[in-house]
């Protein structure tokens, strides 16, 4: 396959008008089969692609086309890949990390935003985009008085469309709930999947941590907060099905650790777990190299690996192939399966980011809380 950038570079003398023409109406990065051409235009001494794909050098240099201010880099990405990146533009001794000005696709997260490269075969799922036909759920807020934590905590609660007090709903407790709403379109996803009958109408408690890296790092106080304070408060206030199979915990990264840890400390309480890119760091021998914040996580995961018990019934575990935690996630799956729980493990060609977690929600939620898709025809 002759790439567009090859055709340009082989033209010989290239002027600004040629570059203008080349870029006009062109989607950047250029996707040609498995080949992805990243571009940057502007004066610079060097340009690098910064990404978080495990297995590739994290900083890859662009080449400048002689006599122009156009820089390019060709990378091969497998079908269906989705990659978040930034460009490092070097001018003199100044290095600037910027989003790709030629690419309008961006993904936000609590630290800002990244540019997004959608390789051949990747599509943003239609169920993750607001559907005007779908009935909207509502979100209200409740207060949990001081207990496990010294201060009152606010918990936002998603109620599905057509919520009725005469029904009994499953309960899903979502770690980093506000981030899931902001960066993983959780409300749109729930509205759409419930409307499409793929997920049972459910109540979702959107938990937000105080000190996240402490509370979500296998902190027994957090487990107490969830199991002994949030769940009873919600069951007192909303019509919830109190059986374990109708009660789920969900989280990503440290949130997945918090979910598994709470279920482990309260076996038989949470029958459904959705664990995304869990930070399940462990050490077979000696220490670990992930920093002090991981110390309690490693201690928990090591203990869990010794005695997993049977913390839940059904687990959906997902991880991106391009993230550094893929090894830890692959390692924990056989352990979970051996404990007699029903486990579904899914990998995606994506990284440690919110849109990866969003894109797995249909498969995970419809498996953990299946809706009446086959039975309801309105």
């Amino acid at each position, binding site marked *: 396959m002759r790439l567009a950038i090859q055709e340009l570079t082989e033209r010989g003398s290239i002027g600004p008008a040629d570059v203008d023409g080349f870029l006009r109406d062109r989607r950047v990065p250029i996707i040609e089969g498995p080949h992805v051409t990243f571009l940057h235009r502007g004066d610079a001494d060097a340009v690098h692609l910064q990404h978080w794909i495990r297995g590739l050098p994290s900083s890859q240099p662009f080449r400048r086309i002689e006599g122009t201010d156009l820089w390019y880099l060709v990378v091969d990405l497998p079908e269906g890949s989705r990659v978040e990146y930034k460009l490092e533009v070097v001018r003199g001794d100044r290095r600037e990390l910027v989003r790709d000005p030629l690419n309008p696709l961006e993904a936000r997260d609590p630290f800002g935003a990244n540019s997004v490269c959608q390789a051949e075969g990747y599509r943003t799922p239609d169920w993750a985009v607001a559907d005007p*036909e779908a009935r909207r759920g509502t979100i209200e807020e409740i207060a949990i008085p001081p207990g496990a934590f010294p201060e009152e905590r606010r918990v936002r609660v998603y109620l599905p469309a*057509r919520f*009725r007090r*005469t*029904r009994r709903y499953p309960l899903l407790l979502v770690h980093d709930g506000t981030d899931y709403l902001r960066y993983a379109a959780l409300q749109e996803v729930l509205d759409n999947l419930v409307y499409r009958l*793929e997920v049972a109408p459910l109540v979702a408690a959107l938990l937000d941590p105080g000190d996240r890296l402490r509370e979500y790092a296998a902190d027994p106080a957090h487990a107490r907060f969830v199991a002994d304070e949030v769940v009873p408060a919600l069951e007192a206030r909303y019509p919830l099905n109190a059986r374990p199979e109708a009660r789920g915990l969900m989280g990503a990264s440290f949130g997945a650790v918090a979910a598994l840890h709470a279920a482990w400390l309260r076996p038989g309480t949470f029958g459904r777990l959705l664990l995304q890119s869990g930070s399940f760091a462990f050490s077979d021998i000696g220490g670990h190299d992930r920093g002090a914040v991981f110390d309690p996580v490693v201690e928990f995961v090591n203990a869990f690996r010794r005695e997993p018990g049977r913390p839940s019934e059904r687990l959906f575990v997902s991880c991106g192939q391009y993230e550094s935690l893929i090894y830890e996630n692959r390692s924990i799956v056989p352990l979970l399966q051996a404990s007699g729980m029903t486990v579904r493990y899914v990998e995606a060609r994506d990284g440690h980011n919110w849109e990866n977690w969003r894109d797995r929600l*249909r*498969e995970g939620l*419809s*498996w953990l809380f*299946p809706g*009446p*898709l*086959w*039975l*309801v*025809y*309105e």
Partner: protein
Amino acid sequence: MIARPWIALLGPQRFVPTVADTLARLECEGPLAVVTAGWQEREDEDRELRDHVGRPVVNLELYRRAEDVFARDPDLFAAHRRRQDRLLELQDAYRMRLGHAMAAARELLRRIEPAWALDAEREDAIAAVRALDEHHLARLETVHRAFRAEVRPSDRVAVAEHRSDLAERLAGVAALAVAGGHVAILLNRLRLFDVLSLAPRLPVIAWSAGAMAISRRVVAFHDSPPQGPGNAEVLDAGLGAVSGVTPLPHAERRLRLDDPVRVGLLARRLAPDVGVAFDPGARVLFRGDRFSVWHETRVLAGDGRVTAWRAS
């Protein structure tokens, strides 16, 4: 041949309501009895429907009545649960066989060569799926017959009281409307009170799950479910008020109508019934032994196309 003056099957009503227009065209005047049991706890939330039809509406409240019967007659309720368990067990067994039969038929339909070998195998594979569907339907009917013989629902006091009240209400209406919703719950409630037998000459207008429930058999379907292979399933025997068609509500959304292999296989599997795509606006009218089609109503064809229907 239906004994009623007419039966109309309609597409989904939420965005393209056609009940009022259909009744007007059929010169059907007077109050309308409605069954909204498929909406379950929301059974009584029928304001939109009442506003749309603009005539007196008698909601038969079959969901509430069934709850009352189950509470008053524990033996009947226990027998009902046993029947449901048996139906589920049969469905599981059927699903095991169906998965393999469908995979074989689909694979044969996708292959072209060698035609001399595959043509006959393809036909036989589809016939095998059809035979499995009919076998399953017969077994489901056996379970229902056993339930009726054991329980005699119409003779139970709680059911009989409700039936008497329902008969009175039906005596004063011009037509019976059966709305969509949860098809198994709707069907169970219609069956429990044997509603259709209470008014054998009453015109019926039904849509979505309502249309499925009053047909000969209920076929549940979805080509792209988030879990599983998406094989349409015979879910239950219907009430048989109409035959010759298998209603497929929301076909546009639930089926991959641009996949000729899937469309063709479903159409041929449903034969001799016609798989009708009941999308918003679709209408089919049955009178005597004839049926006619209004507006753009499409059917699944054996060659994999989805075509405008030219009915008898």
